[in-house]
C-alpha cells in the first residue's frame, strides 16, 4: 500500500510540473481567445471545487458564491491598480485614504482577497450556519446580494455602480493553473483528513455526528471559511482577466453557473467539478450561436441575448431529474484507477490475441 502511495505521489508531482510547463508554453503559443477560455476554466474550476467542499462534502447548501467572489475581486483590483489609474476611475467620489495610495503586487493582493472573503464567509456563517437546508440557502443568498448592494452604495471605497476600470491583468495562465492546483490540493487533503471525515459525517447525519462528538458549528464553519477563501481568490483572478468590474458582474447568475457546473460534474467529486467547469466554459462559447440573429424559413429572428442561460437552466433541470450523481458521482481521479484501467485493456487485448 505504501509503495503504490509513493508511486502515485511521484506521478502527481510529475503531472503538476507538466501542467505548469504546459501553461507557460500555452501562454506563449496559444491565441488570446484560447487563453481566455483556459483562464475561465481554471476560475470556474476553483469555484466549483470550493462549492463542492461545502455542499458535496459537508451537506450545507450555501449560495454566497457571487458575493464572496466580489469581495476577492474588489480587494485584488483596488490593491493592484495604480494610484493614478484609481483617480481616473473614481471621477465622481474620490477614493478614501488607504485605497487612494496603495499599490501591491499580485500575490499578496490575492492572499488578502482570499482572507477577506474568508472573513466575510465567517461573518455570514456565524448566524446562517445555525440554520438548516432551505433556510440556510435563502440566508446565504441574501447575504450575497447584500454584499453586491454594499458595493454599489459605497462610492468612496469601490466606486459604486460605475465599477473599476483598467485593472492590470497580472494574472496569466500560470497563475490561474497554480491557484487551481493549490485549491485542489488543499481541498483534497482536507476532505481526506480527520476533519474531512467529520464533514462527511455531518453530511450523512447531523444528529449522529453530534452524538459521536463532532462540533457541528465549528466544522461547518471550517468548510465555509476554507471554501470562501478560495472563492475570494477565484474572484481576484476573475477581475484580472476581465479588466473591468462593477457590482453587476457578481449578480446571482454567477452563483447559479457554479451550481450548474457542480451538479453537472457530481457534487461529491472534485474531479467531476474540474471536468464540468471545462464543459461549461466550452458550452458557453458553443451556445453563443443560438443567441445570434438568424433567418429561419424566410422569417427574420432577432438575436435573443440570454438564451444560453435558458439552455443551461434546461440542462440543470434534466440533470436533477435524470442524473443526480452528475458525471462522476462520488468517484475521483486516482493514479491507481488509471493504471488498472490500462492494465485491464492490456490484458483483454492479450486474451483476444491468444486463441
Amino acid at each position, binding site marked *: 500500500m505504501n509503495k503504490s502511495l509513493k508511486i502515485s505521489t511521484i506521478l502527481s508531482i510529475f503531472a503538476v510540473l507538466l501542467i505548469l510547463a504546459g501553461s507557460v508554453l500555452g501562454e506563449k503559443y496559444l491565441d488570446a481567445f484560447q487563453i481566455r477560455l483556459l483562464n475561465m476554466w481554471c476560475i470556474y474550476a476553483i469555484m466549483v471545487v470550493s462549492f463542492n467542499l461545502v455542499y458535496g462534502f459537508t451537506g450545507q447548501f450555501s449560495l454566497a458564491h457571487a458575493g464572496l467572489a466580489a469581495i476577492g475581486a474588489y480587494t485584488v483590483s483596488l490593491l493592484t491598480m495604480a494610484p493614478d489609474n484609481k483617480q481616473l476611475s473614481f471621477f465622481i467620489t474620490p477614493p478614501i485614504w488607504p485605497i487612494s495610495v496603495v499599490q501591491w503586487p499580485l500575490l499578496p493582493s490575492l492572499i488578502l482577497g482570499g482572507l477577506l472573503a474568508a472573513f466575510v464567509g465567517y461573518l455570514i456563517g456565524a448566524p446562517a450556519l445555525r440554520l438548516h437546508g432551505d433556510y440556510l440557502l435563502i440566508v446565504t443568498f441574501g447575504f450575497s446580494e447584500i454584499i453586491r448592494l454594499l458595493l454599489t452604495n459605497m462610492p468612496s471605497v469601490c466606486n459604486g455602480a460605475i465599477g473599476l476600470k483598467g485593472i492590470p491583468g497580472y494574472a496569466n495562465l500560470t497563475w490561474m493553473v497554480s491557484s487551481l492546483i493549490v485549491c485542489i490540493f488543499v481541498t483534497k487533503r482536507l476532505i481526506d483528513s480527520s476533519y474531512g471525515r467529520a464533514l*462527511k459525517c455531518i453530511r450523512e447525519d447531523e444528529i449522529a455526528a*453530534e*452524538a459521536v462528538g463532532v462540533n457541528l458549528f465549528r466544522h461547518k464553519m471550517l468548510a465555509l471559511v476554507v471554501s470562501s477563501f478560495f472563492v475570494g481568490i477565484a474572484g481576484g483572478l476573475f477581475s484580472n482577466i476581465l479588466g473591468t468590474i462593477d457590482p453587476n458582474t457578481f449578480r446571482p447568475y454567477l452563483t447559479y453557473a457554479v451550481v450548474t457546473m457542480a451538479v453537472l460534474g457530481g457534487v461529491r467529486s472534485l474531479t467531476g467539478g474540474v471536468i464540468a467547469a471545462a464543459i461549461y466554459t466550452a458550452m458557453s462559447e458553443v451556445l453563443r450561436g443560438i443567441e445570434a440573429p438568424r433567418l429561419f424559413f424566410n422569417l427574420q429572428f432577432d438575436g435573443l441575448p440570454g438564451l444560453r442561460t435558458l439552455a443551461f437552466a434546461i440542462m440543470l433541470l434534466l440533470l436533477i431529474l435524470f442524473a443526480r450523481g452528475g458525471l462522476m458521482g462520488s468517484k475521483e481521479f486516482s493514479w491507481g484507477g488509471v493504471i488498472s484501467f490500462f492494465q485491464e485493456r492490456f490484458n483483454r487485448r492479450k486474451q483476444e490475441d491468444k486463441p
Partner: protein
Amino acid sequence: MNILEISHLTMRFGGLVAVSDFNLSLEKGVIYGLIGPNGSGKTTVFNVITGFYKPSEGSITLNGHNVTGLSPDRITVAGMTRIFQNSRVFRELTVLDNVLIGDHLRIKSSPLEAVLRMPAYVRQENAAYEEMMNLLEGLGLVHLINEKAGALPYGLQRKLEVARALSTHPKILLLDEPATGMSAEETTEMISFILNVRKDFDLTILLIEHHMQVVMGICQEIKVLNYGKTIANGSPDHIQNNQEVIEAYLGVD
C-alpha cells in the same frame, strides 16, 4: 461516588410535561433498565441527558462535572454517548470511517496541520487506525471495513453503531432499544454482545428496551415510566410484581 447523578429533571414542551421530576443515580458498572409503555417519555429522557434537548428544570452530573444544558458533542467528549432508536450509521461512509470518526474528538492538530500532514497528525491518525482495527476485530466486524455502512444488514448496523459509540471512549453508554426489530435469535446474540462489551470496556449502561426478556435478563435495576412520571423503581423481581406497573402495561378494569 455515582458516575451519573440526575436530579429533579423535568422537560416541558409548551404545556405538555414529557418528563417530570426524573431522578436517577447510576453506580459505576451497572446495567440499568428504563421501561414504560409507548409515549411514556423514555426517549425524551435520553434526549435530555445527552444534550439534544435542554431540560426545563433539574441537573445532570456526569463523573462529578455538571453537564446540564451542554451540547451533545460536549457531553460525548465528557464520556457519555448513545445509540439511537433507529439505525443512524453514516450510510455512505465505510465501516472503518464510521468508527474512525470517534478519534476526531481527541484530535490535537489544527485543520492546517492536518492538511499539511504534519508528523504529529500522521502519528495520531496511524494510532487511531490501529486502535479502531483492534476495536472492529474484537467486535467481529473487521472483515467489513471497506463496506459501505448503509449496505450492511440491520443487525450488523446496530453492532456498528455500538462500535462507533465505543470509539469515542465512553464511560456511560445509553442504548435506545438495541434489540428492536430483531428475531429471538438475534436478540439473544445482541444480549451477549452487550454484556461482552460492558465487560471489555468497563462500561456503565443505561438501557431502554421493550423486549422484557432482555430487560429482565440483564438489568440489575429498573425504572418504570408512565406519562413522564416514575411509577416504580427496583430489581427486576420487584418490578414484575408491582401492581402499578402491571396496570400501566395491561390497563385496569
